[in-house]
């Protein structure tokens, strides 16, 4: 075995692990159900997980990753067994598909993984605290209910109020337990702490612990975003598979998982796909902004480093809560959570509300930090009109996140209270008004799309001059257009409600305000085209994604005004046309630029480049697949395909298109897998790239990569315009003393 290559040994181990676990799985299913089933979800999950663990073991020995995977498996099994016992004790009967067992398996598995990978770290400490907090809160309410003589047992062991307080306590305990608030508590007790903490951890372990360095936090955000994108994408593939043909194939009414049957599970996956993707986008946006904005400004760190760490760590329990909602009964409302449906949905909706609420606070505090940083921490000479264009975009985005996010939190909170205390905000029987919810909800949730796309559009404007080797056309107008989109974005929300029975006189003004968004957006397109005009364009991977973003976003932009027009919207509302439209805007405005930014700034963070060939495969696989997906969606949407449904009439003739859409979806998934492999592989094995890889004028590229802890050794002064590429003798920044840099 010694002279076998690690990959071969890995696959050998994989085969053994897979077959063994597959057999065990069949045995377990036989014990549980009394019949021999060769293809069961449990068997497949067990086998593929065991295979992956065995591969890791075979390929790299008993490494930290292997250890993490083993601990994950053991934790999940222990959690599952504990859940079964709890279910047996409380409900008095053994239920193999008890949601509580799945929940414990999920939480213990997660915790086990992080414990196995790096022993005691902020993630595992936080997760253990979150689990304890959840149990303490839930048991607290349960004891009170017992004392008051109320029903204390629910379908998920505890009652709904118990779960809500438990989940809330869980978040608080997570933050208290992992140490992200300890400095503030010390300050309150009158104990001073040093301004900067020494880094106790080296290498990748610092990413698993609380760090105040904006670059570490940026990477933490980005990795979490990639993880959530994968989970959200996986959910999409699950329901996309179900949609590949009419009728119900595997999400049938007979199946039972997480306390839901097949179609209910479809609804949960569909709803969670929406919100998990939204949260992952918020985290991705925060990741890029966190990493890049202080570097572009020449700041040593963000204005409030502790708040920055706190904002990130809020997002972790939020993600856990969102996943808990899947297991605790799910919910069937879509990501919008409209009452009255959400007022009657299963328990999962409460976890969903709390998860969004927590993620919302993460976004609010992150935005606060960005604005304060930009106002207070600019280097010398960086007047507003000489700031990099991405900073303008970050400010515009943060204005929305800082203020409007409170309204989605409030709207969800009001539904939570309606469910818990019978407060009749949205209950017409009590004089409430369901349309009020939609106003509060969309007041954030429409501007939210500008939160997603503005940083992406900023990335496009930031990178385009670098690769076209020309000044950015109309800098001032592009800067102002970001603010313009953000501000107009505040007064367009009711275009989501043309069909929902709001006052009719509101339709026209909201139609016109929505159409107005096209103007600042058009300014950006004009600038991009004019920047490319007669440029000496080069096409490395980031530039491909920038160009792809422009085309895809154009498609999303052009399909917008038809939806904004009342008469057309009445026909298109809630069809796949809308689904196609917003996937266009989000892919063009966020996903493509996000990948561009990752390829572009990856060398800055790691000192290595990502593989160009794999990057190009990623691009050329994802882009056509995406076009097929979105054009197909819009086509069947125009023909009358309703969104959010698990099944459709075969007589409509959509089967073939849906099959193509599913295949395209899988191809996008494959391209992202290639990206993730490339990303993690290049951290170790990528080509060295410590200099100014892209020949950029931006300050962060004038010093060697990766950046030291407090960024620039020497402060710099802004002495020229940021994007004067190709103008001889022009200079953007000047370092105080000769910086130790290798200019390429």
């Amino acid at each position: 075995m010694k002279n076998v290559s690690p990959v071969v040994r890995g696959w050998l181990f994989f085969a053994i692990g897979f077959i063994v676990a597959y057999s065990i799985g069949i045995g377990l299913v036989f014990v549980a159900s009394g019949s021999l089933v060769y293809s069961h979800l449990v068997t497949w999950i067990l086998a593929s997980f065991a295979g992956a663990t065995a591969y890791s073991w075979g390929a790299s020995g008993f490494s930290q990753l292997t250890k993490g995977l083993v601990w994950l498996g053991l934790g999940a099994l222990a959690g599952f067994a504990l859940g079964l016992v709890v279910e047996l004790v409380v409900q008095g009967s053994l239920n193999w598909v008890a949601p509580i067992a799945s929940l414990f398996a999920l939480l213990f598995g997660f915790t086990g993984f992080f414990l196995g990978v790096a022993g005691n770290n902020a993630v595992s400490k936080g997760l253990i605290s979150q689990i304890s907090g959840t149990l303490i809160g839930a048991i607290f309410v349960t004891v009170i209910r017992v004392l008051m003589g109320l029903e204390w047992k629910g379908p998920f062991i505890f009652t709904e109020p118990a779960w809500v307080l438990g989940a809330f306590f869980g978040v608080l305990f997570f933050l208290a337990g992992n140490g992200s608030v300890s400095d503030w508590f010390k300050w309150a007790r009158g104990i001073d702490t040093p301004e900067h903490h020494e880094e106790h951890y080296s290498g990748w372990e610092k990413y698993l612990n609380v760090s105040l360095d904006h670059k570490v936090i940026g990477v933490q955000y980005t990795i979490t975003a990639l993880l959530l994108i994968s989970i959200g994408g996986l959910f999409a593939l699950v329901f996309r598979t179900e949609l590949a043909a009419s009728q119900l194939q595997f999400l049938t009414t007979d199946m039972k998982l997480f306390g839901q049957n097949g179609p209910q599970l479809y609804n949960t996956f569909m709803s969670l796909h929406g919100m998990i993707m939204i949260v992952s986008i918020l985290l991705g946006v925060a990741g890029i902004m966190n990493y890049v904005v202080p570097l572009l400004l020449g700041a040593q760190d963000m204005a409030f480093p502790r708040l920055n760490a706190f904002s990130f760590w809020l997002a972790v329990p939020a993600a856990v809560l969102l996943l808990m909602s899947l297991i605790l009964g799910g919910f069937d409302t879509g990501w919008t959570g409209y009452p009255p449906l959400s007022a009657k949905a299963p328990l999962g909706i409460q976890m969903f509300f709390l998860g969004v609420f927590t993620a919302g606070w993460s976004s609010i505090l992150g935005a606060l930090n960005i604005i304060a940083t930009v106002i207070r921490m600019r280097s010398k000479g960086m007047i507003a009109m000489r700031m990099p264009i991405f900073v303008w975009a970050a400010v515009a985005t943060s204005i929305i996140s800082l203020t409007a996010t409170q309204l989605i939190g409030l709207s969800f909170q009001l539904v939570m209270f309606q469910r818990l205390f019978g407060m009749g905000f949205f209950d017409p029987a009590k004089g409430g008004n369901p349309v009020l919810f939609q106003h509060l909800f969309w007041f954030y949730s429409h501007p939210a799309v500008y939160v997603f796309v503005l940083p992406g559009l900023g990335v496009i404007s930031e990178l385009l001059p670098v690769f076209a080797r020309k000044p950015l056309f109309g800098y001032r107008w592009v800067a102002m257009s970001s603010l313009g989109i953000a501000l107009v974005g505040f007064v367009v929300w009711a275009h989501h409600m043309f069909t929902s029975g709001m006052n009719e006189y509101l339709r026209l003004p909201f139609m016109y305000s929505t159409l107005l968004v096209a103007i600042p957006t058009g300014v950006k397109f004009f600038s991009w085209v004019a920047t490319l005009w007669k440029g000496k364009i080069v096409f490395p991977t980031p530039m491909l994604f920038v160009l792809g973003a422009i085309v895809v976003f154009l498609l999303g932009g052009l399909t917008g005004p038809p939806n904004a027009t009342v008469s057309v919207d009445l026909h298109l509302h809630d069809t796949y046309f809308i689904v196609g439209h917003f996937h266009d805007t989000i892919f063009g405005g966020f996903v493509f630029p996000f990948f561009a930014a990752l390829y572009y700034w990856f060398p800055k963070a790691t000192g290595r480049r990502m593989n160009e060939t794999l990057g190009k495969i990623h691009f050329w696989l994802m882009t056509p697949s995406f076009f097929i997906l979105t054009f197909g969606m819009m086509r069947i949407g125009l023909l009358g395909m309703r969104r959010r449904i698990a099944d459709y009439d075969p007589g409509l003739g959509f089967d073939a298109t849906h099959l193509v859409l599913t295949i395209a979806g899988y191809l996008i998934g494959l391209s992202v897998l290639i990206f993730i492999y490339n990303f993690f592989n290049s951290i170790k094995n990528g080509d060295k790239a410590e200099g100014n890889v892209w020949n950029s004028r931006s300050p962060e590229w004038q010093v060697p990569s990766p950046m030291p802890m407090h960024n620039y050794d020497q402060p710099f002064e802004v002495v020229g315009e940021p994007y004067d590429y190709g103008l001889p003798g022009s200079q953007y920044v000047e370092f105080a003393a000769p910086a130790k840099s290798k200019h390429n």
Partner: protein
Amino acid sequence: MSHRLDKFSAFRQGLVIFVYLAVLTALEYFVAVTFKAVSILVVVAVIKVALVMYYYMHIYKLNEESDAEPHSYSFKTGTNRLGLWLFLLSDSFVFAGLLTARVNLLGLTRPHLNQILGLAVTAVLLSSSFFMNRGETAMVHGDKKGFIRNTIITFVLGLGFLLGVVAVEWPLAAEEGLTAGSGAAGAVFYMMTGMHAFHVFTGLILLLVVLYKTRKDKYSAEKHWGVEAAAVYWHFVDLVWIIFYPALYLIGTAL
């Protein structure tokens, strides 16, 4: 307001503003019980908000030049001040959302509530703001004893407000049939007062923290950002009530 007032003038200014606020509140009450002019109530509330923001919360300090050295206390205080105001801006959207819900659901009606009690708790909270201002002014001029005395009065008044709403007003309203589940009016009333009471509660905790840290001698006339932050937050809580009080007690006809 670029120049700094001496201690006596600062105290006198706080008192004058308090008198203005008290008179305006009395005017509000008078307008509400006599001729129900919503526009006047809105104008009075806006004037009160402006007075509190300028003279008690010192919003103009956002414009103050600070030391350019990024590690200096003055620079950090400038950044902290900006951060606090951004937080308050964000927080005010929660209250604006609740106000929207109130206008949408209740329009020109309001829950039937105990008017005398409402006026009493409002007066208590307003006085607490006055003493908070006195406390902060004392700290600015290095008078720690004065700070502690005034802040304790603020704390007691704030606690009085909190109990007045939660322990007196709520049970009274519930007795008259206005409960959380009784209808839109009840839902709006408990949610608005509850959210505000939660903020009062957190403000009280902040007051305890700065009192404790003053006892541990952590603040001085030059360096007392914590005191300023707690004071500004406390005035913000008062400011919210300046809007919520007419919205719940004065505007429209009682159901």
